[in-house]
């Protein structure tokens, strides 16, 4: 499934970039993220707890920054996570792009999400809705963090 999300942060691009590239701090802006730890160069390990109605998932996985270019404000991140109890996994390839306009920064995230195994039985509509909510919350939180500093 592919989707894009966009958010505007009332701060200059370099400030947003710096915050975004502090992966453990930025990851805390995703609701349900716990314990993001570095596990190598540009590699992180973490857990995401997601709930849809009565169904609770705990996705354990890795996050890798596969590309970054501060001058153009773009980065690519790949995440692989699985819920071994439920028997399903997700794989997400995210392309981030920051663009500045009149002192404000627009953050665009294009995501290609594959849902495998049992999790796929959920249905695209529900997964997409959840992804929308998570991304929205992430972007708003990031904006607040950047402005607060």
């Amino acid at each position: 499934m592919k989707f894009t999300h966009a958010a505007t942060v009332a701060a200059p691009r370099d400030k947003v970039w710096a915050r975004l590239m502090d992966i453990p701090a930025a990851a805390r802006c995703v609701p349900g993220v716990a314990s993001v730890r570095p596990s190598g160069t540009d590699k992180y390990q973490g857990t995401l707890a997601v709930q849809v109605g009565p169904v609770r998932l705990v996705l354990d996985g890795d996050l890798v920054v596969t590309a970054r270019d501060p001058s153009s404000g773009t980065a690519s991140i790949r995440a692989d996570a699985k819920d071994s109890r439920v028997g399903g996994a997700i794989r997400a390839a995210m392309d981030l792009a920051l663009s500045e306009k009149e002192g404000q920064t627009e953050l665009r995230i294009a995501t290609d999400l594959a849902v495998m195994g049992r999790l796929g039985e959920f249905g695209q509509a529900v997964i997409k809705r959840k992804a929308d909510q998570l991304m929205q919350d992430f972007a708003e939180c990031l904006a607040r963090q950047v402005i607060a500093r």
Partner: protein
Amino acid sequence: MTFDYHEPRSLAEALDLLGRHGDDAHLLAGGTATVILMRQGLLRPGHVVALRAVAELGGVSRTADGGLRIGAMATHRQVERSADALAYSPALVDAFASVATVRIRNQATVGGNLAHADPAQDPPPMLAALGATVTVRSPRGERTLPVDGLAVDHFTTSLAHDEVITEVLLPPIEPGTREAYLKFLPRTADDYATVSVAATMRLADDGTIAHARIVLGAVGPTPIRARRVEDAIRGQPTRRIGDAIAMIADDVDPVDDLRGSAVYKREMARVWTGRALAQLTR
């Protein structure tokens, strides 16, 4: 699946079990949704609390004020075949009769349906259009809420974990009110709707619209109340309905899925709302 199965004989006992096991307990009503979720491994409670032996949760009957009470453990089929429900509102019976197959209707309960909160279900929009309220019990006591305060998102209700739906109460229907439930089913007859419309309407003596309630199913994360259309037609002569229908596009929020694209559903919401209102003003 690995769990302990409990069959309390009273609501107090059921609430006690929920209190004791907290998050690790899950209620079981008819089982049509819960059994599938558990078999798929998506739901993994340590304790299943079945409500089938709690007698006070059953029944379908008229209330003293001319309304209707539906017990949370009443099955869809019991509502479908209830003479009291038919006398109260044939459209309500239509909505329950529209659900899936006879087998599912024999097993699935009204309370379970509301607690499951699938946005494409048939009963909730009709219950909302009729102004239904839901009674909920917990160790903290009892509260009632309008049925459209229950579903807050896909498969998510506003209920606390230790709250149990005990009944649905429908108010007496004002004389002169007409009701309709329309289900657009382009695929198979046992499916969920692509779009459904539940509507009630009453005209004043001068022929203008005194009351209108329009609730759509399957076009949002919860049943959608068509407030813009309602506001636009209230107090208006019925010939104004056509102008107002287009506003439905702003109220609905459908998604692409197997039952249709978001664009198609948005258009069908308009078409079928128009048909429902035409039926009510014929």
